């Protein structure tokens, strides 16, 4: 069985599990929504200010929601010791990790797709004409988030205070991704929307570097 096929099967398992109860997805969406609304209480933005602060606010909301959502994906495995069963299956550790990354990506991307129109309404930002490019930026940024997040949730799964430790480990390393994603989104929200190639390339580079690093180190993450 190739790694890709194994990852696809594991992705299907994760999706099936999650869509039975949809509890993680719902909680993620509502939490990101609460963060967005809370920011609007903190400052009352005009249209121009929304364009300046909006991208940062949006990505902070996704980052917080993402780092809280990543932990349960490994915690669920630990409670019933299904991680041991996965390890015994004839699949490579990278396939297991990849399946989890893809599942986390789907959940977070669905949450973002629901949240962005809500954000656009609350902050009076127009999404006309930029939807496709915005989706691309969201996808690349979320990919970086879930790649590093899944690896670090595997690391922190064995530590005490893991709910607090995961954001603590994750957010510093995601700072370059945050900067690039915010800059790319800001250039899309501007008066004349344009997609800055350099930031897009930076996001893609970040994803590739961290995916490669996780591929090289995956054996050690899932060992006994």
């Amino acid at each position, binding site marked *: 069985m190739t790694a890709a096929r194994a990852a696809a099967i594991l992705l299907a398992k994760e999706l099936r599990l999650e869509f039975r109860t949809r509890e993680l997805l719902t909680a993620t969406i509502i939490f990101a929504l609460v963060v967005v609304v809370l920011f609007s209480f903190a400052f009352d933005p005009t249209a121009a200010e929304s364009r300046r602060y909006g991208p940062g606010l949006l990505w902070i909301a996704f980052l917080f929601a993402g780092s809280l959502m990543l932990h349960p994906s490994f915690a669920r495995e630990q409670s019933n010791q299904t991680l041991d069963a996965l390890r015994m299956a004839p699949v490579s550790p990278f396939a297991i990790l990849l399946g989890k990354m893809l599942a986390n990506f789907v959940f977070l991307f669905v949450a973002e797709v629901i949240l962005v129109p809500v954000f656009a309404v609350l902050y009076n930002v127009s999404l006309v004409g930029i939807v496709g490019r915005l989706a691309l930026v969201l996808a690349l940024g979320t990919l970086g988030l879930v790649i590093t997040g899944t690896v670090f949730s595997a*690391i922190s799964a064995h530590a005490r205070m893991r709910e607090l430790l995961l954001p603590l480990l994750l957010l510093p390393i995601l*700072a*370059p991704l945050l900067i690039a994603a915010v800059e790319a989104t800001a250039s899309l929200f501007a008066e004349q929307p344009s997609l800055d190639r350099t930031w897009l390339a930076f996001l893609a580079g970040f994803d590739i570097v*961290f995916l490669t690093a996780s591929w090289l*180190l995956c054996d050690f993450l899932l060992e006994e």
Partner: protein
Amino acid sequence: MKLRIAITALVAALMIFAGYAALFIAPDERTMHEIQRVFYVHLPLWAAMFSALTIAFVANIAWLATRNPKWDWLGVSAVEVAVACCTGGLITGVLWGRPAWGIWWTWDARLTTCFILWLLYISYLLLRGLIEDPQRRATLSAVFGIFAFLDAPLVYASNRLWRTQHPAPVIFGGPDSGLDPTMGKVMLVCVAAMMALMVVMLVDRYRLERLRHEVDELRLSAEARAADSNSVFTKGAV
């Protein structure tokens, strides 16, 4: 023991000489005058930090490859020393920035990536404190250390790749860079002194880690022997 005292004394003497050189031998700088002398502490701290981080990176890889505990001890020692050097570098940088630029801090590429590096390695030390099992602690912190090291080249290259508030490199920099020869010699002495200090701290911390490991081993074998003798006692009682 005597060797360690001698080496420590030598390093102390080197540091005193470096301090003297930085204060009195180095020529006066054209625009910043006396404030510029912080440079002779600031740059050596960063040189020591990058060296320590490289040692930590190699130790992390070596642990994952060989599982020899010595690499784990070396890794944690190097990271602790690197965090200390990074803290010193950030503080001296802030103290230099205020009189030189008028601002305590700015979020340019060099300072931002550097601050992130500091946070990452503090998280590394936190992670180590929160995992109980020694084998797992060594493995997981080695993996995290390798990820964290991905930021270090970015810090080094940041003021070459982007225009930053932080000055462009004067050593190995572009065509406009370069140091006055006397300044260069004083800087060499200061870097050598700081590196020597870093190595001394690293070796001491490594010894501490090794001793902790030995104490744990002794405690385990003592407990095992106590358990054995207890079981003999109950057998005899029957």
